[in-house]
């Protein structure tokens, strides 16, 4: 009997440990967000959002960095979206199981694991130097587009995979060609899933810092970019720059900018989760 009780006790102990671990990460995240809010919330006002960068912490704002982030995000979407979705359609609907498809698959799974800073080195050499784009919005967007390409492809494939086979069969039976089936049936049916994946990929892109530092995006840019060939900064780089400054005022600025960056990230994740839930119900 003693043994049984000991085992039950151990079982209960692990249960409590499990709950503790599960909550640990979340509690730490909450502590951290609380900390940031205390540090930064007082700093956020309209001027902080609209001011240009400055040497004086109380006058500095995030306008150029925010505009840079928006520019980069839009261009990254424009580049990564068509390529990623097209590649996913090919892999999921067209390719036959042969050597090429295996290579493509292994390769994409490998690309997803390449550290983001390596993409920065690729972008620096290819886009900034060989294609002579300089440290421009365009070079940054190409770099980030390559970075999120594997994520877009994998999530789009998942979405296409979730469309029941009966829909494909019905479409073919009506005499539709392969592309007509893809374009008129599969893409609309998997739209929600594809959108979810893309939003998640973009929320990753908006927080990326390292690859953009490597291609030479600047911490200090006097004006917001007005074309794709302009120099730029982004929100995470602005935050990084403020963190590394010694004056206390900049710590406050960094915290305030972090609040805005986290808001953007969490809202994007929230939208993605909303679409996922809404869309999952469709086929059930």
């Amino acid at each position, binding site marked *: 009997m003693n043994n049984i009780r000991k*085992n039950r006790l*151990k*079982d209960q102990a*692990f*249960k409590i440990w*499990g709950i503790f*671990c*599960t909550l640990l*990460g979340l509690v*730490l*995240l909450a*502590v951290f967000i609380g*900390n*940031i809010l205390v*540090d930064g919330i007082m700093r956020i006002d309209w001027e902080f959002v609209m001011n240009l960068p400055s040497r004086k912490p109380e006058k500095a704002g995030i306008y150029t960095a925010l505009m840079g982030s928006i520019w980069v995000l839009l261009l990254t979407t424009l580049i990564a979206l068509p*390529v*990623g979705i*097209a*590649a996913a359609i*090919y*892999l999921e609907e*067209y390719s036959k199981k042969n050597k090429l498809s295996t*290579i493509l698959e292994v*390769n*994409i*799974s*490998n*690309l997803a*694991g*390449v*550290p983001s*800073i*390596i*993409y*920065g*080195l*690729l972008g*620096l050499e*290819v886009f900034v130097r060989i294609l002579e784009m300089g440290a421009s919005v365009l070079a940054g967007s190409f770099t980030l587009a390559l970075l999120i*390409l594997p994520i877009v492809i994998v999530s789009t494939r998942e979405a296409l995979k979730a469309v029941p086979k009966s829909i494909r069969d019905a479409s073919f039976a009506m005499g539709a*060609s*392969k*592309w007509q089936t893809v374009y008129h049936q599969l893409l609309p049916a998997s739209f929600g899933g594809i959108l979810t994946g893309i939003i998640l990929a973009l929320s*990753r892109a908006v*927080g*990326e*810092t*390292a690859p953009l*530092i490597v291609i030479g995006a600047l*911490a200090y840019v006097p004006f917001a970019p007005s074309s794709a060939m302009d120099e730029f900064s982004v929100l*995470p780089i602005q*935050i*990084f720059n403020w*963190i590394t400054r010694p004056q206390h005022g900049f*710590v406050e600025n960094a*915290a305030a900018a*972090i609040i805005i*960056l*986290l808001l953007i990230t*969490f809202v994007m994740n929230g939208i993605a989760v909303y679409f996922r839930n809404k869309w999952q119900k469709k086929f059930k």
Partner: protein
Amino acid sequence: MRKLKELVIERSLLLSALITIAVTVGIVLVLSIEAVNFFSEVSIIDFITDPEWTPLFSDKHFGILPLLSGTLLTSFIAIAFAVPVGLSISIYLSEYAPKSFRRTIKPLLELLAAVPTVVYGFFALMVVTPFLQSFIPGMSSFNSLSAGLVMGIMIIPYISSLSEDALHAVPNSLREAAYGMGSTRLQNSFRVMVPAASSGIIVSIILAISRAIGETMIVAIAAGQQPRLTFDPTVPVETITAYIVQVSLGDVQHDSLEYKTIFAAGITLFVFTFLLNTISYRIRKKFQEKYE
């Protein structure tokens, strides 16, 4: 006409898929060409054996070991923290927790991986380091312990989510058999479920290691910029990634040796993560066959 259109579409879709191969080829070419240039000036023996890395000083040394030890030290701390916690979470969620709890907690945990890393860097430097300093007097304000722990928090969901999926994929009959033999949930978890899902769990740990090795902003902000060959977690170190950031922030001339060092450092990083990713992919493929 229609056939032609279909063919053109198929070819352009294939072209898009082939871009991913071009990306890999591009990465390998860029890194190796610059690295070959680098090794034409610095001997590869020095690179591997010299215990000092000082390419930005006048007395130049090009030994990768200090950067490598910094990278391994921060990654080791992160993994040592994240593996027990992440694994416990996955077992708790898969074998103990009510379904509704699991459904709400999993997306919340995944939020941990969605927080931008520069934000974690701020957390490590401004919150965790001062906190640790109150226990460990003499700890430097840049250190690998704080950076490693925060990196551990970040990779918890990588381990917990993937391991939970693996545990979940174990056929229910195994679970029922274990309970039928009178085992507790704990015995079932560790003697039946974890061994049965071991390949999936190993994959999740390998992916987490690869994430930790390639992580940049947390270590660049909180671990310091002093390459040194040490395993003392309280002093500043520099990782491979942090070095690349440090050089990129400065005004280094293109075609200078300093510029080439970031590619030499990059290819070292790439080789490590590539090996880890390939191993995990192999295991994953094998694992899939097991249950199909």
